[in-house]
């Protein structure tokens, strides 16, 4: 099992950036099984990009499932050209990035999926149905769960088939940890580079459907087409046309958390023509972190492939508690996420050093529910 991966040590001009490339040195032998237990499902036999196929991830003891789409490895130009309409300064300079293959959720994570973890519905359904608690469930039960929300976090916009919203990035990452334990596959948030690569799906235009903003209603829920019965709101996932790689709602519906800290000049750290490998701006503080893709309450221009959204404390300003919750963004009714599963499962050390899994942000003390 030789590595096809190499994290470039020269990915950054600025050595201060904490790309944990050193880890890469230890990675000539990879596919070390991480702490997430692996199942013996057939798709674990997939070792090469050529073998990757779309698959449906079922959730044992429940009727919930979701679809994963293979994203081939490759290189792309990240960021937008200075000439792009509605462009923001932080989208440049454009620079080349190399991305390793992964699967990505065909749609955003729905409430149906998210609440299996967040309000422990999987466990309740398992107990109710008298189903077995196997090793996967035992591992999943051991993953931290959020405190119960004080109010309805869907804010009457619908749950069944609708994207989960209002979670902190920490909550989204902890969900991934639970999902990994529960399914035996390693799931995590995409990096910002992986997200944009998948969103562009080989295109270089403002949107994955071209530069013509007038076509956006076919592809995205945005401010101009999201009103239902007089109310501007999010919509069920997967109802608009997908991008060329089969991903729905990359533009609009809900903005999607990625791994990275937001730094407006992050792209200037790279050489434009030497492909950066696994660029990642590791986040320690709670703010600002990046969400991508725009949302149902944003204009079409704010849903472009290159647009970067930075989180800030306003996103939970109406949390009446102090300290504010580590789990909920009470005011971010437009932030959700989708998951990826890298073809090559990273080692425990990589996961730790790159903070790929949930890591409590500096200064945040999550209230933990004692079961």
């Amino acid at each position, binding site marked *: 099992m030789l590595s096809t991966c190499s994290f470039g040590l020269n990915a950054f001009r600025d050595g201060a950036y904490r790309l944990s490339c050193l880890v890469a040195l230890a990675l000539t032998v990879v596919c070390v099984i991480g702490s997430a237990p692996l199942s013996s499902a057939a798709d674990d036999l997939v070792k090469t990009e050529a073998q990757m196929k779309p698959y449906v991830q079922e959730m044992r003891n429940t009727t919930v499932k979701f679809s994963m789409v293979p994203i081939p490895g490759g290189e792309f130009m990240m960021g937008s050209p200075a000439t792009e309409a509605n462009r923001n300064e932080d989208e440049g300079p454009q620079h080349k990035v190399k991305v390793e293959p992964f699967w990505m959720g065909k749609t955003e994570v729905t409430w149906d999926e998210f*609440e299996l973890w967040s*309000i*422990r*519905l999987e466990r*309740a359904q398992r107990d109710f149905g008298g189903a077995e608690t196997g090793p996967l469930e035992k591992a999943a039960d051991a993953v931290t769960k959020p*405190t*119960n*929300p*004080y*109010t*309805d976090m*869907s*804010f*009457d916009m619908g*749950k069944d088939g609708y994207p989960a919203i209002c979670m902190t990035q920490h909550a989204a990452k902890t969900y991934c940890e639970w999902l990994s334990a529960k399914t035996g596959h390693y799931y995590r948030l995409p990096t910002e580079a992986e997200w944009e690569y998948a969103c562009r799906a080989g295109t270089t235009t403002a949107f994955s459907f071209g530069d013509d903003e007038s076509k956006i209603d076919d592809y995205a829920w945005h401010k101009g087409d999201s009103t239902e*019965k*007089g*109310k*501007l709101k999010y919509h069920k996932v997967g109802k608009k046309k997908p991008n060329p790689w089969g991903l729905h709602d990359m533009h609009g519906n809900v903005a999607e958390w990625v791994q990275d800290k937001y730094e407006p000049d992050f792209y200037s750290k790279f050489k434009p023509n030497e492909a950066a490998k696994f660029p990642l701006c590791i986040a320690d503080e709670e703010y600002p972190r990046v969400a991508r893709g725009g949302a149902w309450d944003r204009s079409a221009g704010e849903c472009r492939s290159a647009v970067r959204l930075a989180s800030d404390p306003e996103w939970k*300003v*109406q*949390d*009446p*508690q*102090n*300290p*504010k919750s580590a789990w909920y963004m009470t005011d971010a009714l437009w932030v959700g996420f989708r998951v990826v599963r890298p073809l090559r499962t990273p080692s425990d050390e990589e996961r730790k050093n790159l903070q790929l899994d949930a890591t409590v942000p500096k200064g945040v003390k999550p*209230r933990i*529910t*004692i*079961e």
Partner: protein
Amino acid sequence: MSSPDVPQPSASRRDFLKTSALAGAGAALVVPTGFSSSLYASGDDTIKVGLVGCGGRGTGAAGQALSTNGNVKLTAVGDAFPENARGVVDAVKGGLGAKADRVQVAPEKIFDGLDAYQKVIDSGVDLVILATPPGFRPIHFEYAVKAGKHVFMEKPVAVDAPGVRQVIEANKIAKAKKLKVGVGLQRHHQAGYLETIKRIKDGAIGDIIALRAYWNGGGVWDPRKTREQCKTEMEYQILNWYYYVWLSGDHICEQHIHNLDVCNWVKGGKDKEADYPVKANGMGGRQVRIDKKYGEIFDHHYVEYEYKDGSHMYSQCRHIRGCWDSVSESVDGTKGSSNPGGSISGPGIDWQYKERQKDPYQVEHDDLFAAIRKGTDYNEGDNGAYSSMTAILGRLCTYSGKEITWEQAINSDVNLMPTKFTWDADPPVKPNANGVYPVAVPGLTKVL
């Protein structure tokens, strides 16, 4: 004091001094104790705040009080549990950023114990925030207004009829002393509600036929400690207060009051008892959240309230996960319908409140503190008491299974509170040998 929300320094200072002088002169004759403290005893325009109840909400409320315009300081804190009282000072500072120097709590003004409220109120503050579990509120409120303090108190303001009556009586004192009283029903300070309800009252949907109120969710925090981890039953119940009726009033009081209060607001005038429901009937139970650690409260209530004009409010509140969730109100009228939080629709009407709304938890403090500084009338106490009573009436119906009138309910002498407030005293409800608490049984349980 440069904000447009408060008068310019010279004017407010002048008014303030005038008010101080007059009230100060009268204070010695009329209400000898404490009244002078409401005149900013520190001698300048600094409002000194005391915090009673140092949980997450109290800590949040203290931060909001300290984020208002003008000079304001937190000078005393108190909580039943010493670790909460000690921890709150840094927590409030942490949330304030550049304004952290507004937290000036001397070590000897950090109080704990079940009488900590008295010590905070008597420590020389001008305003007190009451944010303990609701059962204690009437006692704390009465003590605060008798001591001449302005009050911000969280909802609900009582969990039983004697408590409601105590708050109403105490509020008469507050009004006589011109003390300002804010109640944490923050929708009254939320722009979308204010604008929409104004339009409803101006006739946008015609005459109101029916109202619906929902707080359906998965339930709140789990108990924090086991019985074995607590020295006494009293400590255990107070720590896990949500699950005991004498402390929380059940979730129909603790949460759903917000929605019932909005419907009362839409339906009636403000503060007049006659505008609140005249009777109710309902059903409820404890079907899913049944572990003994969840004490005695129900996990669902359904209540039909009737107003004096015969219109109805239909109310659901549920703490069961995986069900239809909604925290909202809706109003049906002869010409259309409304979500009073921000939209109106019907034949020929399609209106939505679209402005960006300020955080109502902050605005409720901005409004209260501005009133204190301007000396304008500001008292949400009666509405807080009557909306609390509305929720209590609902619980009396779901626990008993009977139809109950407002008159019967508000005049009830059933007092849920303990007779003695010490850690080793008996709480009013006790578990059986297996640690299981008695739960109301509709048709059998007497509530009046």
